[in-house]
């Protein structure tokens, strides 16, 4: 799920409850849904607004790639 | 409603019974595991022209129920432990002012927030003693869904007849269980309504024991006979008094309403008690476990009987005192740490060995637990 070396968006799959919020409300449509599961498919577009991280009800997203799952 | 056999939940049977008994007002505040009673009342009451209101809390619910009853509607509220605790002050008001109403407490695991979704029978003593001061109260407790229906009607009838709050004490098992029931033909149901004063009366004395039965006729607010109601000790006119004589007369009448009518109010089922050496006493869902255990033990030839209390308060002292002298042991099975067992001990007066089977871990007592405890008790040195 790493897309770049210096910058990444990490989705903790065990924590994610597939609510779809990150997918729907990313202003840049960075995520797509794989059977409800958010997958980063457009990392380049990300503007690092971190809204996805802030809005994830399950703290499953880290924008910036520091999470060590 | 027809008399076809249908599957029905305990809480649903409560609402059906209440409406059949004439309930036309419900005020409540939701709480697990009683919530379905509120939800079904919200749906069904307006269909029969009745009123449902969700109040801001349980205290307000109890107040609204009393108000509605004074205004002439048969009224009910339902709750569980925490809400039942909150209602106590106003329940006491209804006891003293003799306002008919039905309070359902679907018991869950306590104390405090406890185990909201799991069963218990831990509010048995509270149902009798939860409000301050000496007061009369009737508490009934069903074991079957069908009986939820019947006892809800009975709760309304007793409440109207004796002008006393009546508590339907359920447990989560009975409330949430679905079971086959055949509801009776509505026309076959006996409904009791509060006694009204003679409408041509000159001076209505709202607390006067006109008929010598201890139960004053009750006017409704707004129907031509104005009167005063207070939670203070009052004389027969309904106005406050601090006279010792008035106080004693009032409290005595309130209590005698109940204790002079035990024949009518007490309701219990004795099974196999005639030749039993050991009788197991229980109520609510626990009685179903006891029933199974007793049947198993009887099949094995053991002389076990059971006493199932449908009226819990007033306590059926007499049922215990009338047990034959063949009986050696009484075992009280309750889903609590041991509550009603003290009453049984008080009634036993040393004539029987009294023991308890208690479970207070959020699970119904199982038949095999009853069987093994019974064995223990019967084989004690």
């Amino acid at each position, binding site marked *: 799920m790493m897309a770049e070396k210096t910058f990444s968006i990490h989705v903790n799959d065990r924590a994610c409850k597939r609510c779809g919020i990150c997918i729907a409300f990313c202003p840049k449509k960075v995520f797509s849904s794989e059977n409800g599961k958010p997958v980063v498919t457009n990392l380049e577009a990300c503007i690092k607004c971190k809204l996805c991280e802030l809005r994830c009800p399950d703290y499953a997203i880290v924008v910036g790639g520091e999470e060590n799952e | 409603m027809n008399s076809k056999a249908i599957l029905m939940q305990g809480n649903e049977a409560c609402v059906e019974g209440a409406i059949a008994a004439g309930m036309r007002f419900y005020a409540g505040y939701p709480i697990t595991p009683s919530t379905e009673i509120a939800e079904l009342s919200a749906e069904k009451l307006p269909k029969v022209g009745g009123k449902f209101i969700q109040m801001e809390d349980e205290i307000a619910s109890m107040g609204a129920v009393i108000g509605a009853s004074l205004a002439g509607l048969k009224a009910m509220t339902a709750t569980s432990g925490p809400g039942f605790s909150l209602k106590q002050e106003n329940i006491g008001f209804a006891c003293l002012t003799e306002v008919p109403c039905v309070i359902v407490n679907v018991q869950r695991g306590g104390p405090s927030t406890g185990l909201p*979704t799991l069963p218990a029978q831990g509010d048995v003593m509270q149902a009798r003693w939860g409000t301050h001061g000496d007061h009369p109260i009737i508490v009934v407790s069903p074991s079957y869904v069908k009986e939820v229906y019947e006892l809800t009607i009975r709760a309304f009838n007793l409440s109207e007849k004796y002008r006393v709050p009546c508590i339907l004490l359920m447990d989560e098992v009975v409330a949430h*269980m679905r079971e086959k029931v055949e509801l009776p033909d509505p026309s076959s149901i006996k409904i009791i309504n509060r006694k009204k004063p003679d409408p041509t009366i000159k001076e209505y004395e709202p607390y006067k024991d006109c008929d010598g039965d201890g139960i004053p006729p009750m006017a409704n607010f707004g129907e031509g006979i104005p009167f005063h109601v207070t939670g203070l000790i009052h004389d027969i006119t309904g106005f406050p008094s601090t006279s010792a004589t008035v106080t004693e007369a009032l409290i005595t009448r309130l209590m005698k309403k109940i204790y002079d009518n035990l024949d009518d109010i007490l309701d219990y089922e004795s099974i196999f008690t005639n030749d039993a050496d050991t009788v197991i006493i229980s109520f609510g869902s626990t009685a179903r476990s006891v029933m199974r255990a007793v049947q198993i033990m009887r099949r094995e030839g053991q002389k076990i009987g059971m006493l199932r209390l449908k009226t819990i308060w007033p306590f059926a002292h007499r049922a215990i005192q009338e047990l034959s002298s063949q009986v050696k042991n009484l075992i009280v099975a309750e889903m609590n740490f041991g509550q009603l067992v003290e009453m049984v001990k008080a009634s036993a007066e040393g004539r029987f060995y009294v023991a308890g089977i208690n479970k207070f871990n959020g699970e119904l007592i199982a038949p095999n637990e009853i069987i093994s405890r019974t064995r223990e008790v019967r084989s004690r040195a």
Partner: protein
Amino acid sequence: MGERTEIRLSGSGGQGLILAGIILAEAAILDGKNAVQSQSYGPEARGGASRAEVIISDSPIDYPKVMQPDILLTLTEEAFVKYKDNIKSNGIIIIDSSIRKSEPPVKIVSLPIIETANKSVGKVIVANIVSLGALIAVTKIVSKKSIEEAVMDRVPKGTEELNRKALYAGFELGEFQQKQYKNK
């Protein structure tokens, strides 16, 4: 199976097993029997494990909880692991074929219930009804007529056909298996 039959339906919240339990109990009543249905609530009443219990009997039912099921249906591995060991020795376990069956203590019938719901019927949410069909085909605990009536009574308006299809798909699953079993 004796006069008192205990059935436990288990899986995860949202699989509709409580509704399935209710329908099963209603079918039993339509058959003229007694039935009790109950369920366990988790602390939160949402998500997590779900369990419905049904007891069917010709005579009145006293103790209303399942002591040891005659029939266990499980749709998730978690539920299977949790409940598989508490079952009557002559009992039967019906599981979704996605579940790895470990040390079967009693007769196990593994059926592609969820797959059937998903693929043949077209909606995974009717897995509960497929389960019911299969369970009845395998155990004959209630009549087909009654279960069909009970299903039709309970399901939301407009979904009758879908659910009937699901029920029949379940019947088929179960009957096919029974035939195979006999042929073995």
